């Protein structure tokens, strides 16, 4: 169906082919919508969007050539929290003319036409002055008049079209970074323009050697190059001198030291030679060097930032609202605005936003992110619940006792900050080399000077300077950042977000791997692993479980996606017990053995033996007769054993560090072939941090986890790896975030890091060979600025090509 047909809704023979939705073009299911003209739309979302666009005169949307239809899935939320003062404090900034600005991450931005829609639809509301979408990150900037229009109305408007907004949490950092980026771009541009012009003048000078050039012209061109290269040294090149100076003040060496040495020596000698009007100048080499090095650094910065960005966007998408109950009304409030004494409603499946006491409702709470325990805990009125845990079964009402920083999660997060500060710094490979490099170059320069003082004292100083310039570690300084930026880019496409080059260097060496259990080695949720009963009952079980949000209900549904659920009536759930109802006229009961036994006609007949190793058992009875038993476990991830084997083959030693009961941890360890000593259960977050700290004394530690209880350990470890689906705290502190399900990305990361280091070493070797060649020529007195100007870019280009063509994270899984 074409776009034209979609908006006209005219299909040649409606009977002959399935009608396509007027809004998105997807096939319309038969007679399911209770709206007028139901045959024209596939869903309510699309019908509402179509109406909205037509009333506003924005039908042109359907003519956009690059529009890709997609069914509209609004969240239908009220977004009341967007009008809350606390929300405005956190996410809204003042702009000129009494206006305010906020930034949202939008869900559902999928094609270029979304730009058209997102930038026009909010303007239909009075008081909205501007909407600007950044397609790459799906961030929209809204500028509006808070006196005229509540922000929630703008949010509802976008949500109605399927672009569910979430406040962007990185806005303040983003502004700082943007300023840095702009400054860096300006520097690169200035350095590039100066380098290009110095080069042109240099070509004229080199040409003058072969033909004839008047001495006055030559002098003039030398002065012009000096005039051009001076600003390049003073402004864009200043960073290298500052970097070198601060390293020297701390009595260390980094890559900036040899760079500053070469730049300084080349520039000073060139300037002197210009003034005295004899001897070589090195200005073209110096200017090009500054330009190339800035580009290399910018590339690495950009790649790392892209990884941090993706993690931040994910962070923004995790909801941070609580439903506060005041009397009979409920409204949504940002978590940051919760105060002790408020009452919050927690729906099944939602995270509990604060520490508090249950005042109403019985449910089961999943504490795995907070403590690592896989088995949910039953709670009833009077019990305490903690922020960061997830309500599993049925609605709860909780009176807030502690919120924000004061909660257990908040206290853990402060621990995380301290832990991150205590992490051992890593000397990057290139920086480590620079010490030996600087020493070697200075030694060779001294030797050159000494030898030539005997042979030809007039030329001794120039030859020594030529050596300093030609051995400038340009390629060496480009080798690492480029390889790292390419590797990070490739890793991101494989769902591995690497936030810094250090992590790659650390991951390349085998070290101690500390693994969390729940959610890392295991799925982190109950999985049906044992079914002992007739297949025919499965439909009846699903019919009941369809009505429940309980973790076991989800496990049943996930285990049998192909089974057609029957329909159930008179469904009744008992928290901590089970679920019962009528399916096809027969009474079906699913629940704990105790719950089902009480409903059996002959309770004694049911064998009391259950599967000893199973964590959770459910029974199924039909008309008072026990017909099936089901066993659930927090099952091992499908790729866990295989990935761990790969990691071990790479030389990593693995240990499990879990907050779950030692018995459960030992079982997982056994199935992975780990000795009982290598599996530690019952660890608190503080224990985990201490374990990482102790192990760090003997070498690098890689900590892999998903929960708040792992966050401090992740921050302290040499490499902290956060798993998909984990707590926000992990997302923020981890050096590497695996946005793909499973442990396979971890093995890929280790192998990829190793390949990256191999590329870096190859690049370093190439640039060292070039430097040796240059040093040899300079010592022999055979180097002149033209040779240097040719050698330098050749080695840099070789390094760039190697980094760019390398496949460090291959697209297909190994």
């Amino acid at each position, binding site marked *: 169906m074409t776009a034209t047909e979609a908006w006209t809704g005219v299909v040649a023979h409606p009977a002959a082919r399935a009608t396509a939705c007027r809004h998105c073009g997807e096939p319309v299911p038969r007679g399911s919508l209770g709206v007028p003209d139901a045959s024209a739309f596939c869903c309510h979302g699309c019908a509402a969007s179509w109406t909205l666009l037509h009333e506003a005169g924005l039908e042109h949307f359907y003519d956009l050539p*690059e529009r890709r239809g997609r069914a509209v899935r609004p969240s239908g939320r009220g977004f009341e929290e967007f009008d809350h003062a606390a929300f405005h404090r956190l996410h809204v900034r003042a702009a000129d003319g009494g206006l305010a600005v906020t930034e949202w991450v939008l869900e559902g931005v999928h094609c270029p036409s979304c730009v058209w829609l997102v930038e026009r639809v909010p303007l239909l509301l009075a008081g909205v002055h501007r909407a600007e979408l950044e*397609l*790459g990150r799906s961030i929209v900037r809204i500028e509006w008049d808070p006196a005229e229009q509540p922000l929630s109305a703008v949010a509802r408007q976008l949500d109605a079209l399927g672009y569910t907004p979430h406040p962007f949490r990185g806005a303040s950092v983003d502004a700082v970074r943007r300023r840095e980026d702009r400054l860096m771009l300006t520097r690169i*541009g200035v350095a590039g323009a100066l380098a290009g012009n110095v080069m042109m003048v240099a070509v004229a000078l080199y040409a003058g050697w072969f033909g004839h050039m008047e001495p006055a012209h030559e002098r003039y061109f030398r002065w012009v190059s000096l005039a051009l290269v001076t600003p390049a040294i003073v402004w864009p090149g200043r960073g290298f001198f500052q970097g070198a100076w601060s390293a020297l003040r701390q009595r260390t060496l980094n890559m900036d030291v040899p760079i500053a040495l070469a730049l300084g020596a080349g520039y000073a000698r060139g300037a002197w030679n210009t003034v005295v009007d004899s001897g070589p100048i090195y200005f073209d080499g110096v200017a090009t060097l500054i330009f190339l090095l800035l580009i290399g650094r910018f590339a690495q910065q950009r790649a790392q930032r892209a990884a941090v960005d993706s993690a931040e966007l994910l962070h923004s998408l995790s909801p941070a609202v609580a439903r506060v109950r005041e009397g009979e009304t409920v409204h949504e409030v940002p978590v940051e605005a919760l105060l002790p004494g408020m009452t919050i409603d927690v729906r099944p499946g939602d995270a509990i936003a604060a520490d508090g006491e249950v005042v109403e409702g019985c449910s089961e709470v999943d504490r795995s992110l907070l403590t690592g325990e896989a088995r949910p805990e039953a709670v009833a009125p009077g019990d305490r619940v903690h922020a960061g845990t997830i309500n599993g079964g049925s609605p709860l009402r909780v009176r807030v006792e502690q919120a924000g920083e004061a909660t257990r999660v908040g206290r853990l997060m402060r621990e995380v900050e301290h832990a991150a500060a205590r992490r051992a710094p890593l000397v990057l490979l290139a920086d480590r080399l620079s010490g030996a490099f600087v020493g070697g170059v200075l030694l060779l320069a001294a030797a050159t000077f000494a030898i030539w003082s005997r042979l030809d004292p007039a030329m001794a100083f120039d030859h020594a300077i030529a050596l300093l310039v030609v051995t400038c570690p340009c390629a060496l300084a480009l080798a690492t950042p480029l390889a790292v930026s390419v590797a990070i880019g490739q890793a991101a496409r494989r769902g591995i977000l690497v936030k810094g080059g250090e992590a790659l260097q650390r991951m390349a060496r085998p070290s101690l791997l500390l693994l969390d259990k729940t959610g890392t080695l295991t799925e982190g949720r109950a999985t049906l692993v044992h079914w002992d009963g007739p297949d025919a009952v499965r439909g009846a079980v699903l019919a009941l479980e369809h009505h429940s949000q309980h973790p076991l209900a989800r496990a049943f549904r996930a285990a049998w996606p192909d089974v057609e659920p029957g329909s159930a009536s008179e469904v009744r759930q008992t928290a901590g017990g089970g679920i019962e109802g009528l399916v096809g006229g027969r009474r079906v009961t699913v629940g704990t053995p105790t719950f089902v036994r009480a409903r059996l006609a002959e309770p004694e007949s049911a064998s009391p033996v259950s599967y000893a190793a199973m964590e959770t058992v459910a029974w199924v009875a039909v008309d008072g007769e026990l017909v099936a038993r089901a066993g659930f476990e927090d099952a091992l991830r499908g790729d866990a054993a295989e990935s761990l084997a790969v990691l071990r083959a790479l030389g990593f030693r693995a240990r499990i560090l879990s907050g779950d009961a030692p018995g459960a941890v030992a079982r997982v360890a056994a199935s992975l072939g780990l000795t009982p000593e290598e599996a530690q259960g019952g660890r608190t977050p503080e224990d985990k941090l201490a374990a990482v700290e102790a192990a760090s004394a003997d070498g690098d530690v890689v900590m892999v986890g998903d929960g708040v209880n792992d966050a401090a350990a992740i921050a302290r470890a040499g490499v902290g790896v956060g798993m998909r689906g984990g707590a926000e705290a992990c997302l923020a502190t981890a050096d590497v975030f695996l946005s793909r399900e499973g442990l396979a990305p971890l093995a890929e990361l280790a192998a990829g890091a190793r390949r990256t280091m191999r590329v870096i070493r190859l690049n370093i070797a190439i640039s060292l060979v070039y430097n040796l060649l240059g040093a040899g020529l300079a010592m022999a007195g055979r180097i002149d600025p033209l040779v240097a100007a040719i050698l330098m870019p050749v080695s840099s280009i070789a390094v760039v090509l190697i980094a760019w063509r390398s496949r460090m994270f291959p697209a297909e899984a190994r």
Partner: protein
Amino acid sequence: MSVMYVLVPVALLLVALAVAAYAWAARSGAFDDLDTPAVRALHDDPAEARVVRRGASGEQRPR
């Protein structure tokens, strides 16, 4: 060849102007987002588009 003494400064002046223009563009955020503006430019103004379409085919859109 003494024209050099005039031409080179003139050329450098032009370079300075170009660099200043570039610096202004970078600082005012022209290079912040390289994807969206390209897309935005493809979308014509809806009012104009409607006039053109109606004139061309004479068809009426359903309301």
